[in-house]
């Protein structure tokens, strides 16, 4: 393993984060605070408790998931797309590093960034609503697993994209709707029976449900299934990345 190379790429990517601090950390925190003000304080005070949890607190796991998913995807996709776009990827491709090392470094950096972000949002949320985390270990596990999985997903999008439009397409048209409809702001038990069934095809439901369980001990679907679904998605992404590297898809001609 070329650990020095991995460290170099990781630090390079993290340096990009600090350089764009406003865009990468401050703006998600501000938008999350706005959600709390609107849904938590203004509207939330008129919504009754869900399974014994106040609405303001109930949406916290969902909001963290929302940021975690979108930021993981955008960090990782941008991180690998940009060198492709500017041409600096030549150096990575000509270096004595394996594709596995390249992926681990880029995905590791993107995931670190969104985990930091997730924890900052959690801290921000604690300012607005009283929070109690029932299963801190599981909370961290879901946080890390989701960040890694979706960074991997973003990495794939970044390799696939051959223009800025495609880079935005998947997050905008697929991930954001799935997150909003995945029970971030409501319990899926509140849906009519038919839509409860449909919603089970949405992978984000399992992420939000598992994450929420680690906070409040309540869940829409069982935690085992949540964990299983997350791992399945992780495995699918790993297979796609393995295929990309085997064929050199969109990286090598």
């Amino acid at each position, binding site marked *: 393993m070329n650990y020095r190379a991995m*460290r170099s790429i990781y630090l390079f990517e993290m*340096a990009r984060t600090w350089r764009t601090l406003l865009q990468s950390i401050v703006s998600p925190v501000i938008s999350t605070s706005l959600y709390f003000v609107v849904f938590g304080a203004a509207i939330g005070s008129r919504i009754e408790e869900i399974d014994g949890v106040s609405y303001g607190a109930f949406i916290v796991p969902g909001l963290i998931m929302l940021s975690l998913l979108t930021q993981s995807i955008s960090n990782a996709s941008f991180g690998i797309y940009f060198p492709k776009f*500017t041409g*600096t990827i030549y*150096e990575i491709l*000509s*270096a004595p590093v394996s594709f596995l090392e390249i992926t681990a470094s880029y995905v590791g950096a993107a995931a670190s960034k969104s985990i930091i972000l997730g924890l900052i949002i959690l801290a921000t949320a604690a300012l607005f609503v009283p929070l109690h985390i029932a299963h801190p270990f599981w909370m961290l596990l879901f946080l890390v697993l989701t960040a890694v999985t979706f960074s991997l997903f973003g990495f794939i999008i970044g390799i696939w994209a051959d223009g800025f439009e495609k880079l935005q397409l998947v997050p905008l048209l697929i991930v954001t709707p799935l997150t909003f409809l995945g029970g971030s702001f409501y319990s899926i038990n509140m849906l009519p029976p038919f839509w409860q069934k449909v919603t089970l095809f949405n992978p984000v439901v399992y992420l939000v449900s598992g994450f929420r369980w680690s906070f409040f001990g309540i869940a829409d679907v069982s935690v085992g299934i949540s964990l299983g679904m997350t791992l399945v998605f992780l495995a699918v992404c790993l297979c796609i990345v393995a295929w990309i590297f085997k064929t050199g898809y969109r990286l090598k001609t």
Partner: protein
Amino acid sequence: MQPIISVSNLSKTYATGFRALKNINLDINRGEIFALLGPNGAGKTTLIGIICGIVNPSEGKVTADGHDIIRDYRQARSRIGLVPQELTTDAFETVWATVSFSRGLFGKKADPAYVEKILRDLSLWDKKDSKLITLSGGMKRRVMIAKALSHEPQILFLDEPTAGVDVELRRDMWEVVRSLRDTGVTIILTTHYIEEAEEMADRVGVISHGEIILVEDKAELMRKLGRKQLRLQLLNPLDAVPASLGTYGMELADGGRELVYTYDTAGERTGITSLLQDLNESGIRFKDLQTHQSSLEEIFVSLVRKQP
């Protein structure tokens, strides 16, 4: 001595069906400056891309310092530095950061003293904290050379190193390349500035339509293919070359006012002495004469033209 780079039966067909390289065989000797000449689209960049690991070969085998570039890619690549044709740099990084990054990427331990030496050698030291976006094109080119040298490679590829670089900087660059060669680095440069190859190279390879059509020692090439011409400006125009001078195979030019004799510099005897004597005996007088030796450029053009 074992060649430092050995390319055998290498072919590349792109997904579009375009055959960029056709059965290339090429050995690069340790410590030499090798110039790869060829018109645009001849396959120069593809060949370099394959050796450096950016392009997948379709067939054939390449070794760098004895290591197969695919099976043993870590060993092969750690010996190679690449300066690509396009100026591609991270706009917001500093010179120091980007060169240090390259060193780490190639698995070398951080060595600020060595990075400092490279930057000083390339006259980049006072720009070390500048962001790349603020540098001129020539400076960026130097940064790319610094990045390629950061991991102390034994082999350096320079793909069109002086494209779009002014004359002064080009001369500087040649100095840098020469001093690198003196430290034992093997240098392969592609160019379509023939004067560059003529000035710098030990050996020249010509590639055209994906095929190596010639590899030759530069001096040898100049000798072999370099024809010299003697042009005599006549005092009185001639209608035809006199029969008494028929053995020289001369031609008339400029409406009979000029007599042109082409000879081979490689020959023991050029025949000039006897020609001048015969001219004198035939009563042909001339007011001036010039000799002209073909440059590498003319050799190159005539070689490429011969290709179907």
